[in-house]
């Protein structure tokens, strides 16, 4: 049993809008089913990679009001909906809380790519006067934090963390520090990304990051599998409500899990390739465990970054084995959800908290033959029931950003 350190923060609300579902419960159930969400994407028709993990049936007008929705890029829309879910789930009411004590930290990487691409087309094809005056406020990445703050009346610090695919995890780490320092009493922390646009997908394709399995998209995201050939781009948002555990328990809130440790590091090695030694990731993981006061032999479960790219999975697999041994049940939920870039760390933090709450490890979709270079106990096929007390979520991003979070069952 690992006791939460005095710096722990409690997760009291979870909001998810993912390719696996429009809320946390639906997303969790789909992830536990192990059925991939990757599918042909009509908006990418004609491109070399024409499939993705898109959030299905997201009606921003119905959810946010038609007069509001058109002014927001999709990544902001997804975040606001997830934030509202998380706040309601936590049993908090923005109408009555002291908003000056509430912060909003949201990871985002690419901003409003849909807006930029559409408006740039208008600029080139028509005239400067055809460019929307909303282009800048819709496209700026920080607007996801600004608009979420407006929506929930949060007057404390708000900002975006931009560390590529580690953004969501870093947002949670920063949020924890805002609570720990007494700057805030409540922080909405997470990540959002909606970059399934022709230009962005083309860029990711050109750099060789994406799976090219067009003939069978449902089998394309296959973390740790020997036949993996790249990630499947996804969109989504995950927002957690974080509070100091004593505050949460004093108001009788239900706690999913506690965030008990956070570690962050940088490879400083290459723009996009992970340091093959895994030294940077190892530093982040060991820092998070030390921060939590958790032994390397106490981790029961890892929600791995596991992108399904050849380089990431083998490097990450080696580090997890080296640091944590063979004990933890490892999964990559990206087999189901795809890779939601800056939102991934937040979405996976939510899944890790849900795994601790339910004592269930979701399976890694499409993992049929483990890469012989990887020596881990990876859950496959069906979800595994297990007694889980301590879990880790890892996130690694272009730029060499590494982040690890340690969670403890409430």
């Amino acid at each position, binding site marked *: 049993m690992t006791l939460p350190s005095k710096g722990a923060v409690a997760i009291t609300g979870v909001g998810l809008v993912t390719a696996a579902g429009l809320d946390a419960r639906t997303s969790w159930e789909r992830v536990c089913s192990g059925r991939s969400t990757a599918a042909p994407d009509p908006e990418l028709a004609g491109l070399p990679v024409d499939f993705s993990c898109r959030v299905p049936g997201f009606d921003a007008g119905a959810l946010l*009001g038609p007069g509001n929705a058109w*002014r927001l890029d999709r990544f902001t829309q997804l975040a606001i909906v997830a934030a509202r879910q998380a706040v309601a789930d936590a049993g908090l009411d923005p109408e009555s809380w002291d908003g000056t004590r509430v912060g909003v930290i949201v990871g985002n990487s690419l901003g409003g790519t849909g807006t930029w691409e559409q408006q740039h087309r208008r600029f080139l094809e028509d005239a400067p006067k055809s460019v929307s005056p909303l282009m800048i406020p819709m496209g700026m990445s920080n607007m996801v934090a600004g608009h979420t703050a407006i929506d929930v009346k949060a007057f404390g610090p708000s900002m975006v963390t931009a560390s590529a695919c580690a953004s969501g995890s870093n947002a949670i780490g920063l949020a924890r520090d805002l609570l720990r320092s007494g700057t805030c009493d409540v922080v909405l922390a997470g990540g959002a990304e909606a970059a399934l646009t022709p230009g962005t997908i083309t860029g990711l394709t050109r750099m060789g990051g994406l799976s090219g399995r067009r003939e069978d998209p449902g089998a394309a995201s296959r973390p740790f599998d020997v036949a993996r050939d790249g990630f499947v781009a996804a969109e989504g948002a995950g927002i957690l409500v974080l509070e100091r555990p004593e505050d949460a328990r004093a108001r009788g809130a239900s706690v999913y899990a506690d965030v008990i440790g956070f570690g962050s590091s940088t490879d400083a090695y290459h723009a996009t390739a992970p340091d093959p030694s895994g030294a940077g990731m190892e530093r982040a993981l060991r820092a998070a465990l030390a921060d939590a006061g958790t032994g390397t032999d106490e981790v029961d479960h890892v929600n791995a970054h596991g992108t399904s790219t050849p380089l990431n999975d083998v490097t990450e697999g080696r580090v997890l084995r080296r640091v944590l041994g063979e004990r933890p049940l490892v999964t990559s939920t990206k087999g189901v959800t795809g890779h939601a870039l800056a939102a991934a760390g937040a979405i996976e933090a939510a899944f890790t908290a849900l795994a601790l709450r339910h004592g269930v490890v979701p399976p890694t979709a499409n993992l049929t033959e483990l890469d012989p270079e990887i020596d881990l106990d990876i859950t496959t096929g069906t979800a595994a029931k297990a007694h889980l007390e301590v879990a880790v979520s890892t996130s690694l991003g272009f730029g060499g950003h590494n982040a690890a979070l340690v969670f403890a069952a409430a």
Partner: protein
Amino acid sequence: MSAVQEKLTGLLVSQLGVPAAKIEPGITYKDLALDSLALIELTMLINRELGGALDDDVLQGETTIADTVELIESQGVRA
């Protein structure tokens, strides 16, 4: 309702999410809760979709739907 007013109403409803029931000739953009950025967006839509040639600063918070229709029609647009 003139053809121009019908098209203007269509733009307000479909593009800017204004409730159709609120739109009547005497109502101002301020009353429709459209801010300055939304009014530049509307100007752009009128010029693009209806063939108007309004300057960006013509529509103001106090401008009414009827004023706008008159402005557009004064440019020879009959929709």
